[in-house]
């Protein structure tokens, strides 16, 4: 149903809090979690508010919270603050080398101002089935660290994080603190492929692959696809099929077919169910091919 909007202004009214520490953020949530949304880059949330698809009473601006920003390597694990911008992440030391698919998904992230304003946590918390960074984070077995105002912390594997379009397992009183990525093994290769109408677009289909190549076989492989189901999803059938196999034309074709059978896309304004089904397989195939090459190349993993 047609709905009146006015994108020149923000019609809904709300309060904005601007805490400067994680503790303060949690305190804000403790007082009033209901109807509160965390505002990071705003490139998605403010659009949703402008289009009046969500009307929070209160926004907590988390872009001035040092604990939520920046990147560090701890015990080989890459820890990315949830309010780290997509562009900072893409250019992070070692990210492109070790987590190539993730860097590529950041590169493909809409436009440069949106990469600068948008954050990794925001991209995940908005829980779009087409979220660009999600498939890559799935592929790297990423997890998110959530903190609640009660003081508890929990870590949720990324592939258990999304529940449906716009929905995650996060509670209203929680804040995403960081995204954690395990160390990549020797012989790892990864790649991200996105198909849109134009380059700067919400994807019609996206795919990320991370594999470990050992003795010219796939010793380990994780594949995820975006925009082909209610949430970003793993392509388990293809993963299982590829384990222990060599990547060649036949295995690529078989893997693509397996992906086609696993995905459950819909027809919308951006593409059709049929197209997405087929192209999900193509995207995975292309990502697999690139990841396989990179795994051998060794200069990128």
């Amino acid at each position, binding site marked *: 149903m047609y709905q009146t*909007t*006015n994108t*020149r202004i923000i019609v809904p009214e709300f309060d904005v809090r601007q805490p400067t520490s994680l503790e303060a953020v949690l305190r804000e949530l403790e007082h009033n979690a209901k109807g509160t949304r965390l505002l990071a880059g705003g490139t998605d949330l403010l659009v949703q508010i402008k289009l009046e698809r969500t009307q929070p009473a209160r926004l907590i601006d988390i872009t001035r919270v040092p604990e939520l920003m920046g990147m560090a390597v701890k015990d080989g694990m890459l820890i990315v603050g949830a309010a780290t911008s997509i562009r900072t992440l893409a250019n992070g030391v070692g990210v492109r080398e070790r987590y190539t698919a993730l860097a590529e998904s950041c590169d493909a992230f809409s436009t440069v101002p949106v990469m600068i304003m948008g954050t990794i946590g925001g991209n995940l918390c908005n829980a779009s089935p087409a979220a660009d960074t999600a498939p890559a984070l799935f592929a790297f077995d990423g997890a998110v660290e959530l903190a609640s105002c009660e003081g508890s912390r929990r870590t949720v594997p990324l592939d258990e994080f999304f529940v449906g379009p716009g929905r995650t397992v996060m509670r209203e009183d929680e804040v995403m603190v960081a995204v954690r990525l395990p160390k990549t093994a020797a012989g790892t290769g990864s790649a991200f492929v996105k198909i849109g*109408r*134009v380059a700067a677009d919400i994807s019609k289909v996206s795919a990320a692959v991370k594999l470990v190549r050992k003795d010219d076989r796939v010793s380990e492989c994780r594949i995820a696809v975006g925009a082909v189901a209610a949430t970003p999803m793993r392509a388990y059938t293809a993963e299982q099929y590829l384990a222990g196999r060599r990547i060649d034309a036949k295995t690529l074709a078989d893997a693509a077919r397996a992906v086609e059978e696993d995905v459950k896309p819909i027809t919308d304004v951006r593409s059709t169910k049929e197209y997405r089904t087929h192209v999900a397989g193509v995207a995975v195939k292309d990502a697999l091919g690139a990841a396989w090459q990179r795994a051998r190349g060794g200069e990128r993993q």
Partner: protein
Amino acid sequence: MQTRTKLNTIGRNTHRKDGIGKVTGTEQYASDVSVPRAWYGGVLRSPHAHARIASIDTSAAEALGAVCLTFADVPRVKYNERTNCAPPHLYRDRYVLDDTARHVGEAVAAVAAPTRALAEKALRAIKVEYEVLPAMLCAADALKDGAPKIHETILYRGKETPIEHNVAVTRLIEVGDIEKGFAEADSIIEREFEAAPVYHAQMETKSVVCKPAVDGSITVWATTQSIHNTRQLLAEIYGLPLHKINVKKIAIGGTFGSSIQMNSVVPICVGLAIKSGRPVKIATTREEDMYDHCRYQVRITLKLGFKADGTLVAGHMKTTVELGAHNTQGYHFLGVIAGFWVSLYKLPNMKYEGTAVYTNRTPSCAMQGFGAPQATFVTEVIMDEIAELLGRDPVEYKLTQYRGLGDTFWGQGPTVKSIILSDGVPELLEVGAKKIGWDGRPVPGTQTGRFRRGIGMARSFHCSGVGQPRKTGAEMIDYSGAIVKLNEDGSIDYIQSLMDHGGGTCEAIAKLVAEEIGVPLSMVGISDVDTNTTVYDITTHATRGVFAGGAAALKAAKSVKAKILDYASQLLDIMSESLVIEPSEELGQGVIYCPGYPEKRMTLGELAKYLHVNSWGTIAAVESLHPVTAPPAYVTYFVEVEVDTETGVVKTLAAALGSDCGTVVNPGLAAGQLTGGLSKGAGCALIEAHQWDRQTGELASKGFWVDGKTLSILETPLLENLHIDFAHTYEPTGPFGAKGIGEASINPALAAYSNAIYNALGIRFREVPITAEKILAALSTKKVRRTQPAQRELVNS
């Protein structure tokens, strides 16, 4: 070829005069105008595709302090918002506000309030009860027997005229005898095509500011392609004498046809200003704008008969056009499709049947090319196919059949016929073919790899202006006026209401004026004007700005020059015929002198000062001009694409674009017209379609640019693969030999892409946009939906 031996200003790249304001952010557009005490206006829009307003209650909005406007508050004057057509061809079917909404997003009521936020609150406080009516969301539904009427009657030639079957207008145009023609043909080919409607996506959404004065006069700043037409229509609606309405000429953030009419928010804003007695500003949102206008949806069936040697002998075209909720220019649009079609190739026998249908969708209006992109799509794809059937190179074959030098040409339709006097097509096709590597193009259907390359070619034109007959039978009004004035220091004011949409029209005309009078360009100013201080100019449309508007200004400049020389001859005591004026960059002045007689010399500044100090008076001229021709501004496209057969994604690798715009006045900006045409044209060919939900009549994009995608900087070819060439022609009827360029620059795009994709895949696409989805579907079935039955109708007799 008739050319000037030496041009001082024309053909040089210069910093456009409005450029400094544009690069520093200080140029004002309608949406930037602020007037003291102004209130913000907002428009309440229909959520229904078709509904009668049973009741409307504005009391809650008024209680918030807003001033409200409903159909009861505005004059019940039926009008057509585009007044370029001569009155006998105007179909009036709309009111400022009506008691019936005919498309989702149509204005239902309006408010003005001190802040945007309050205006928005007030809008939402208006209570409307709708009686929802059945909506016809495609032509097939609208044309069904017994389909509910979108308009019961319209005002036509002074009479309320019933509309039957939702058919707004039909046209039948015949030349020769097609029965005889087809009987003489050795082969006949018939194909069906469809071009989706697209959104203009001009950068600036429509805006308007109206300031009323206590004496009842109003000042208006509006996004418009014609300040005078806007003024005339406001006068018609609000019953004011023209002198009490002053419409300001102001920069416009792109139009591509979207503001050829007086935009629907303009009279609403005026109504609010009059009712509230305050200045009111309405700056529409992108979502409102996307519901406001789009290109016509066109379905065309074309049947062509040709001899074994390729000579075309007969053509029959049937066109169905979806107008949307209002008939802004259906009659003219049907006519130009015929005109563009028959002017592409020599066709002794033709029949054209056009039908324009109302639907409950966004009203269509002019968009760059206006019928030519669609007519060219159909014709150039079929001609490519005929060339293949005949085993001939499409370039060579088309050159034997096209309308060129010395041929008769219609352009804008059957009432406008003229002889082509300048033609750069052979030159452009030769150079384009060479730059794109035409001879090395693949053989269609022979490639097997995943990525397949193809080169496609199409040629087209746009008529420079409308060029109507002078006495009876004119469909369109087509004249320009201009004022040129010599200032007291020797500088020149160029004063014209003609709009520059960004292509550099006024910059070009300033060059024509500078060239003619003989002053440096820096001494010509483009005046900031309005309707009260200018003479009439129809509209910047139909690629007429430089050709027709420029010709009027040139006429005024000639008149000023004659007066200058007359005065100078008195002062210098020498016959005016022996004097010349030339620009001196060194003096920064025009210099009047007699070649070979050095003492007889003065600067234009000296002359002007003398006239001023001694009270001889002002030198100025006002002229108007009606061009008698509308010469073809030819454009040629060669595009090279790469098709990913696994994803259906099409990439433009290279393009060679050629323009015959006669004398090139602003080379850099003219090249920009071509590259802009390519970018927009490629968007229409590959991804863009304005789509409505078949149940609700809502836009699939919901009016948001995220899903109304246009091409970005990444989808255009690299600079080294982008070739731009201009023909070395001179149009004898144009100012300094110039023709138009802007609209023409998009016209071959749809056909060139379809032909290039055919060259890559061996599959013909006759529906645009040719999306990745369509390409994959076609590849998987190895045939193209809907066009396959037509192929069987190919007769080889």
